[in-house]
């Protein structure tokens, strides 16, 4: 009996494996069919080939990588190469025409624009400053925020709140949110953190559970366990950020020399892709605010 059972199991396994393999093969051929169909339908998809180079802001690394990967999936003959050397170096590189697109996580300077760089904003990065629910302070100024994070203001009574020490919470070194926050506030390497937490959720939890805590998180994950304070009297909403009145936000610029319409087909296709619904969904996916 046992032997028979063994043989039966063996046969069944063989069948299943063979079936699986043939199914895979089928799928593969179907895919190939799809590809050829696509090729005939949209000639430009297959035609578009060559190298597209990006260089610039390290803060835009996530967005640039996600976008270029998706772009390369769509246009298999295109190779997108992205380097992350800093905003100013990126704009310099595009002005020197060593790359096609220069990434900058700030508005272009007048001098850069004068040299022919065009500011194409592809996304906006926003950061909310959060405090625990029992905090009476709902509005702080840029200077106050700077002083709190530098450690010169240590008590909420100094900014109009109750007599309660401030617990300064932040992200770990290397985090993109921390980099962006310190850059926008111009407090790089001067912050006196008492808690360095390695996740956005962790910062929210710590601030929510600690009376007198202050922290910062990406705008898109806010919930009602904490209060997002107004900065310089401006509420942290998408509308305010798009209008440019909320100061803890910055544009993600993909600079080109000359307007997009003057660029090569490849560069034009890349911008078309980023501004398409698919591209803007990617922007949302990496936690950024889209531009309309």
């Amino acid at each position, binding site marked *: *009996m*046992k*032997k028979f059972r063994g043989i039966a199991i063996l046969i069944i396994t063989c069948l299943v494996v063979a079936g699986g393999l043939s199914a895979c093969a089928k799928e593969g051929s179907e895919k190939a069919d799809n590809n050829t169909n696509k090729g005939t339908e949209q000639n430009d998809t297959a035609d578009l080939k060559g190298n597209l180079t990006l260089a610039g802001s390290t803060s835009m690394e996530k967005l640039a990588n996600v976008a270029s990967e998706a772009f390369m999936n769509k246009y298999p003959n295109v190779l997108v190469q992205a380097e992350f050397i800093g905003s100013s170096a990126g704009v310099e590189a595009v002005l020197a025409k060593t790359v096609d697109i220069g990434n900058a996580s700030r508005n272009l300077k007048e001098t850069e624009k004068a040299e022919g760089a065009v500011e194409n904003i592809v996304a906006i990065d926003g950061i909310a400053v959060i405090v625990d629910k029992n905090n009476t302070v709902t509005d702080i100024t840029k200077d106050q925020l700077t002083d709190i994070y530098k*450690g010169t203001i*240590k*008590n909420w009574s100094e900014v109009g709140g109750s007599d309660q*020490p*401030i*617990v*300064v*919470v932040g992200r*770990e*070194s*290397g*985090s*993109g949110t921390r*980099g962006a926050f310190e850059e926008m506030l111009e407090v*790089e*390497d001067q912050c*006196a*953190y*008492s*808690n*360095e*937490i*390695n996740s956005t959720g962790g910062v929210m*939890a*710590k601030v929510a*559970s*600690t*009376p*007198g*805590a202050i922290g910062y998180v990406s705008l898109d994950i806010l919930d009602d366990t904490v209060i997002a304070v107004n900065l310089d009297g401006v509420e942290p909403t998408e509308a305010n950020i798009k209008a440019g009145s909320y100061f803890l936000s910055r544009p993600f610029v993909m600079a080109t020399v000359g307007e997009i319409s003057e660029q090569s087909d490849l560069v034009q296709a890349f911008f078309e892709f980023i501004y398409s619904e698919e591209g803007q969904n990617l922007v949302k996916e990496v936690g950024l605010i889209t531009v309309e």
Partner: protein
Amino acid sequence: MSDRKFSIIGSYKTKNSVERAAGFIFTACAFFAVLAVFSITLYMIISGTPAIFEVGLRDILFGTVWKPNAADPSYGILYVILTSIVGTFLAILIGVPIGVMTAVFLAETAPKRLAAIVKPAVELLAGIPSVIYGLLGILILNPFMYKIEMAVYADSPNHQYTGGSNLISAVLVLAIMILPTVINISEAALKAVPKHYKFASLAMGASHIQTIFKVIIPAAKSGIVTAVVLGVGRAIGEAMAISLVAGNGANFPLPFNSVRFLTTAVVSEMSYAADTHKRVLFTIGLVLFAFIMIINLVLNRVMKGGKKNADK
């Protein structure tokens, strides 16, 4: 019927082949562990040393500023190393007396009924995942510590408040976490002390407590030291729980400072680190690895010494 065919009660030939196959499997499994240890050691050394040449051993080990992403980066981990040493030492200082006393209780003085409650509780404590310790630390220990912190530093406005995420919280969590290790191994050591030592001591007129402290604990010394060393190993290697309660600031290990241990330094920054920063994190891993190796060597010495004493 056919079942009997595969039994080892068979001819000499089948018996022999079964023996050989089993021997081969055992050898292969044994070498799997050896292979793992060697490849991990090799990997740690290969990935941990480049940063030493890049930054300089002295700058890493004796630097006090940890700013890996500054314009002028510095990668000093002296405070991190000190925190690991001080934190572990304090955890041992708290955990070992409690652990050894519990072991004495279980091995000597406990009424059977009470032992039946304490023993499973200790075993359960060993099985709780470390993240649970961390969560309880956040929910119970940190708010409590924050209240103490506010009371202690009420008159010193220059103190940086940590919201209870400090060295004390981490030490308390570690002390609880090493308890099961210390208790179980000490208890085994105490129970292994030959009964006639105890009876001889009692017969000489010593009280039970005198016997415990003057005879049984000294006789079980090497086992208790083993327990302590294993506790040190557990404490220095723990990452998850203390990353949640220690605050993770790379500060000097003072009781109310937010501190960072060797383990949490690696865990908290690995995800986004790049280039030199990442390589230095591997070097921190290597330092931790060296610590663990030293502890193991000490442990081997202690166990060997224990055997010698027992032989005498």
